[in-house]
């Protein structure tokens, strides 16, 4: 993995009213890596992604993508520049077919300007084959199961041909076989040259696919490092599982030698 930084935030802060949902976060994403972003519920992960993708305006701080300051850019310009994301709560275009859904990404995304509508639809077919949904292309989006909706989210984002892709809990609600498939998909995407930031609660996935993990708690950075380091960090466990769990674990460890 090379160490070239493709994306960077400097002191990103977002206030809602008087409360800081994201507070002074510095994050670096290296080209070609899969970075995991974890943190307990309410830690500000989604707000963080919203803030750096132009859905929300940061209160303070800077966002830099490939050396260009994109702080406060509207979402569509961020998208066209080569950053794509999926949404935690899927946002399919229900009244359109799967193929049209994906074609929208190909039309307006990174290389959208160069494509005609027809070319975009062809690109959509290509992406649908890649995510193994080709057989569903003429279905309307509201006929899909949740697993396919999540995959459609992914396809829409991929059709934008991003250099950097943010995945917001694409595995939540999937069964373990579907999770395996999704992990495989993420590796495949990464192998095609896309840098990824994945927000995930499924620890198996974090441990399984990420190169590095960044932990957010109460809107600030708690830890970062390799998956093994981070997932065994007591601070992280405590933040994640709460005081009680750590207490219990400690007691169990104390109790076990006596047995």
């Amino acid at each position: 993995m090379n160490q070239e930084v493709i994306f960077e935030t400097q002191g990103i802060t977002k206030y809602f009213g008087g409360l800081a949902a994201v507070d002074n976060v510095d994050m670096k994403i290296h080209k070609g890596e899969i970075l995991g972003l974890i943190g307990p519920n309410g830690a500000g992960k989604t707000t963080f992604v919203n803030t750096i993708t132009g859905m929300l305006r940061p209160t303070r701080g800077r966002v830099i993508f490939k050396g260009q300051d994109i702080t406060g850019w509207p979402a569509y310009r961020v998208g066209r520049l080569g950053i794509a994301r999926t949404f935690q709560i899927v946002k399919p275009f229900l009244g359109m077919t799967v193929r049209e859904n994906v074609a929208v990404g190909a039309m307006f995304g990174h290389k959208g300007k160069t494509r005609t509508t027809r070319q975009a639809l062809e690109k959509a077919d290509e992406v649908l084959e890649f995510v193994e949904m080709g057989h569903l292309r003429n279905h309307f989006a509201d006929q899909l199961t949740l697993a396919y909706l999540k995959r459609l989210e992914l396809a829409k984002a991929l059709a934008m041909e991003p250099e950097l892709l943010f995945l917001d809990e694409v595995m939540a609600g999937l069964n373990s076989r579907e999770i395996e498939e999704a992990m495989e998909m993420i590796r495949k995407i990464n192998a095609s040259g896309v840098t990824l930031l994945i927000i995930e609660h499924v620890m198996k996935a974090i441990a399984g696919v990420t190169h590095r993990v960044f932990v957010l708690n109460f809107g600030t950075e708690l830890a970062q490092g390799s998956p093994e380091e981070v997932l065994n960090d007591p601070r992280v466990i405590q933040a994640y599982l709460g005081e009680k769990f750590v207490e219990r674990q400690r007691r169990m460890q104390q109790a076990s030698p006596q047995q």
Partner: protein
Amino acid sequence: MKKSGELQNSPQAASKKVARQKVLLGLVGAFVVLLAVLPLFASGFWMRTLTLLFLLAAMAEGWNFIGGYTGYAAFGNVAFFGIGAYGTALSMLRLHFPFFLALLVGAAAAMLFAVLVGLPVLRLKGHYFAIATVALATGVGEVADFWTDFTGGAAGLTLPFFHPIQLSNYFFYYIAFVLVLFGLGLTYFIMKRKLGYSWLAIREDEDAAKMMGINTTWSKVVAFALSALMAGLAGGIYAYWNTFVLAEEVFKIEYTLQMILATVLGGPGTVFGPFIGAFIYYILITLLVFFLPVGQLHATILGLIIILVMVFTPQGVMDFLSGRKRLTLSALLENIRTHKV
């Protein structure tokens, strides 16, 4: 654009769909030809009725851009009609422009207004957007009604009357008809293009659309401006046809409601829906007024029809027409099933 029941990706379904579209296109085509030759037979009354109907259909086609495809419940589109009417009348009276040039000025004024107002107002959503547009239309109407020096105020504007084309029924019939066809063509053209896809994406999920690289502000403003174009042209034609412009007439909210009704009745977000809906609606109320012995209750009946449509088939008749749905009792009850509490 809504769907239901059968999946449409098997080759048979696809070919069936194509066949259905051909039938529909054929029907509409035959109908258009019929309308084109109709003036050879029809009385002045029907010419007038159909001319009004065409203007309504054109406005509905315009409303369909913002309301049907982009999903913004605009309730103030009559403002564009009124501005088109005033723009046309004023450029004929003050600048002595010939009619067609004046018509373009009127339509351009309506579009300009749509852009200026759309930039702030299209940031609003749902009810807020709906009422902001109602408020703007009403407010603009009042200004026109009050601004005596510029618009003639409540006394209105009188256009010269005795030009031969005004005395002929054919001229306004055909120009309104051409406007309807222009609207159909424009809709078809746009919906095959990126702009059309961007509207649908905004309607279905604006945040996702934004994130996927769609400049939603621009797309929405274009949709709004194109509805203004259609309504503005209709307004300009109306002004010259009726030979006078009164604010209370050309800014009345009934026009907005009629264009929405026509669109909803036909099928919002479809190419032919507004045209077909305008036809059903306008012929229906004309028949109610003239041919049914309902006395003074025809407005009540109109209201009841709207209620029935809203309860049973708010997606419009296009779903049945295009064969996407079968016209069965259960299809009619489906809306209640999915939307009741």
